[in-house]
């Protein structure tokens, strides 16, 4: 069995980290809004809009520079794309927040509407910009891996060609996703803000009687999910590859929700759950060509896994008590 080799494991682990990253961003975002008592099915749409905004922003910004000199590289352009993705994600989340907090809509219907919007609207934008309904122009300025960023440091090149180095040679966004796990834990469980956020998701009436602004805290939760979902989108479109493709999220928003439930609405649980899904996906990619199983079966695997997780075959958890219920003063 030659496919079980050092190269295989390096590729598997590195691939798993890459596949985990968007799920981790999204699931952490989902954690904040579900902890605040809002269901956010719209994560899928937030990722899509984030990815679209990132790719389009980078392409529009780099075009004039590239017209002058095709080989020019400007360090801030990818980061402007990341910022645009955050803004787009936040804006999308804000729509969901307004409709479901202010207008007390059914949160699942509202989220579904935003997802449907993210299937249709990007095509119109893409046709307007690129006369192509399914994909954006490929961009030159991607977020690069830290190996490329550090290539001028002496010794770095040697380190990043060792097996360990190749696993660690990831984009800064991958590192950011994993750093956010303890940060989220600290914010949620060790700060007054986190206590308030959790309290409006558990018992908004009680929180309100203590003078906590329930609506405001819920906006915080939902908008944070927009920020993080936007980051996941940017990671997909200008980091993993170099363009936006229609339906880019490909179910990641929903899988992230499953990971969130599997991870018991806790940052470290979410880390474990998303790593599981990430490994499953990386494993699928690694063995796809080897003819072990038909590729449609392998493709269905994460979805079956999600259903098993939700059915509670692998651990059960208690959701925030007030989740999905609009709050009325």
């Amino acid at each position: 069995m030659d496919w079980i080799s050092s190269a295989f494991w390096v590729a598997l682990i590195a691939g798993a980290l890459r596949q985990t990253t968007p799920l981790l961003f999204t699931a952490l975002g989902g954690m904040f809004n579900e902890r605040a008592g809002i269901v956010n099915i719209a994560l899928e749409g937030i990722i899509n809009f984030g990815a679209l905004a990132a790719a389009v922003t980078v392409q529009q910004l780099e075009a004039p520079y590239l017209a002058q000199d095709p080989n020019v590289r400007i360090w801030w352009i990818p980061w402007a794309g990341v910022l645009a993705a955050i803004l787009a994600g936040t804006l999308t989340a804000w729509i969901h927040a307004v409709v479901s907090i202010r207008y007390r809509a059914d949160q699942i219907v509202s989220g579904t509407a935003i997802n449907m919007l993210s299937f249709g609207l990007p095509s119109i934008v893409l046709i307007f910009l690129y006369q192509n309904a399914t994909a954006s122009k490929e961009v030159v300025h991607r977020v690069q891996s830290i190996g490329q960023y550090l290539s001028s440091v002496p010794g770095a090149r040697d380190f990043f060609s060792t097996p360990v180095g190749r696993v660690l040679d990831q984009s800064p966004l991958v590192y950011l996703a994993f750093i956010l796990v303890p940060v989220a834990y600290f914010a949620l469980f060790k700060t007054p803000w986190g206590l308030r956020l959790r309290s409006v998701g558990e018992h908004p009436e009680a929180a309100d009687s203590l003078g906590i602004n329930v609506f405001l805290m819920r906006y915080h939760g939902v908008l944070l999910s927009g920020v993080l979902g936007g980051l996941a989108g940017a990671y997909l479109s200008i980091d993993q590859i170099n363009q936006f493709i229609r339906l880019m999220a490909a179910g990641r928003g929903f899988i992230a929700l499953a990971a969130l439930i599997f991870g018991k609405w806790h940052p470290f649980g979410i880390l474990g759950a998303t790593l599981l899904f990430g490994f499953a996906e990386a494993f699928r990619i690694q063995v796809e060509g080897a003819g072990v199983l038909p590729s449609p079966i392998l493709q269905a695997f994460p979805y079956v896994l999600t259903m098993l997780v939700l059915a509670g075959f692998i651990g059960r958890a208690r959701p925030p008590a007030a989740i999905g219920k609009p709050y009325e003063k």
Partner: protein
Amino acid sequence: MNRVFFPLIALASAALMAISPWFVAKRAFGGRGVLLAPFGVVNPSNARGPWPELGWLGTMFALWAVLALVSVLVYTLTRGQKRARWLYVLGGLGLLLFGLEAYLFYQAVAEINTEALARGVSPRRLPLRRYSLSFGLYVQLFYALFLLVTARLNQPKGQRILVRYRGVVVPAVSMVLAMVVGGAIVWLLRPIPGVREPLSTYAYLVAKLDLVTYTFQLLFGPVLSLSGLFQSALIATPLIFTGLSVAFGFKAGLFNIGAPGQLIMGAIFAMLVGVYLPGPRFFVLPLAIAAAALGGAIWGAIPGWLKARFGAHEVINTIMMNYIALSVMLLLLSKNEWSFFGQKVYLPFKFPGYEPRSYEIRPEARIPMLHKMLGFDGAGPGELSLALPLALVLMLVVYYIFGRRLELGRRVVYALGAAVGGYVLGGFLPGIPATMSPDLASVRLNGAFVIALFAVAFYNFYMWRTKYGYELRAVGLAPKAAEYAGVKISSKLVLTMAIAGAFAGLAATHYVLGGGIDEYRLKQSIPYNVGFDGIAVALMGQNTPIGVTLAAFLFGVLLTGGLQLNLQLGISRELVLVLESLIVLFIAAGGFLPRYFTDPLLAAEALREEEA
């Protein structure tokens, strides 16, 4: 409605009238047009004349401005019955003005055309062939109607109609809001067609508004022709099924996002029976249809069971089932040979060739085209058979007139019996000679449409005429109370999802057995996304049978019009998807209307306050 909104609406209407095209005298393919606006003719593409010079447009605008001003004065100075009477008069005046303008315009156009005919121009090359009313006139019509509605609301107990018909008000307002946002998207993203040189600000505004108007004229265009209506019915057929599927779940408090997957499974089952089961038509065809329902039912029942047994939320599970169904279809259709751990396995389902598709459905299992069912054989002269129409009429007559006094089960049986009798009788009667135009014959509307209508009837019957439907609605409204009253919630969940899935699965009859797109096969390109459209259909139709049918038809019209939109303005059909999702979003938000439109309890309270 209050003292701020009313003057604002008046002002906005007047402003829109000032900057919008009132008529389009000449329209070329691709959206270029000669626009007649109150303050001049806008001709961005420098088309050559002649067109009617309507000197009275400025005067008319002044009249409208006065009308708006008077209506504001009336609104601020009077109240109650008096205000209502005045507004009725003003609204009526507005309608008169509108009619007068339209008449004058058509008159002017006809004048130019007859003059050209007199000069010997052939009727196919008239100077003005495509002309229409435009945004300014629509605004006027809406403003007049708005005045009339406000008048009605200002009568004693007038507000009650709004609350009573909130099932129509919320979708209608949401639709209008979605169109406003969709129009804004078009305004932002599309250039003015055929523009040669920079336009003045006024001309720019007029031309942009014309672009937006033309977009929606194209979208709603299919209602104007018989073949357009047939085409819309064709597209509406699967939407009726998936809309019913989602609505059925909603009634029980379940959100079925799994219609796409259920449709795929229905299609696979229907394909398996339709391709591989030999036998006579009366045996194979019903079985193939039942198989489609069964496939969808199984795919729906699984998330239902997971919810009943493990409390797993059906939303994510149905979404996951969509992806899994897609994988199953890929497994069957994309290759004949797969390797399982090095073991070669052969699957016989894929038709040889590049495209992933199944073998053809056997002729016995195909659902006939609707024009065949009506007795025509393709385009050309034929005889309109009375079998189907007579069956339909007799069924309705027996059900609604003779069946009134009967107990329900018998009523249905008699009605169905009458339908069969009518079909047989109609078959023996001589048909009516008629001619089928090639336009109509080319529309692939098939018997699945009839099945869809039966599905609507079944939905109505099951939901409001049976004990099961009553229990199901009770579970949807108050699960705890229903359980206390003796409803077994868990089995109800599974059954509901199974029936919802069966509805979605039946949509496959249209595509696979009915050849709704082009071939009698299961193809990988089967548009399973209509399952998502079902959400919009169900919400727009407020989960009622008539509502779902009308909403499906509305989206059928929009999707058909979307084709023209793509051809003429280069705007992607995705605009329809955007409109749909906005409609869903706005309906979820209750159309941004006051709470008593969405909350039955508050509505009852509002009605009671009106009484007092």
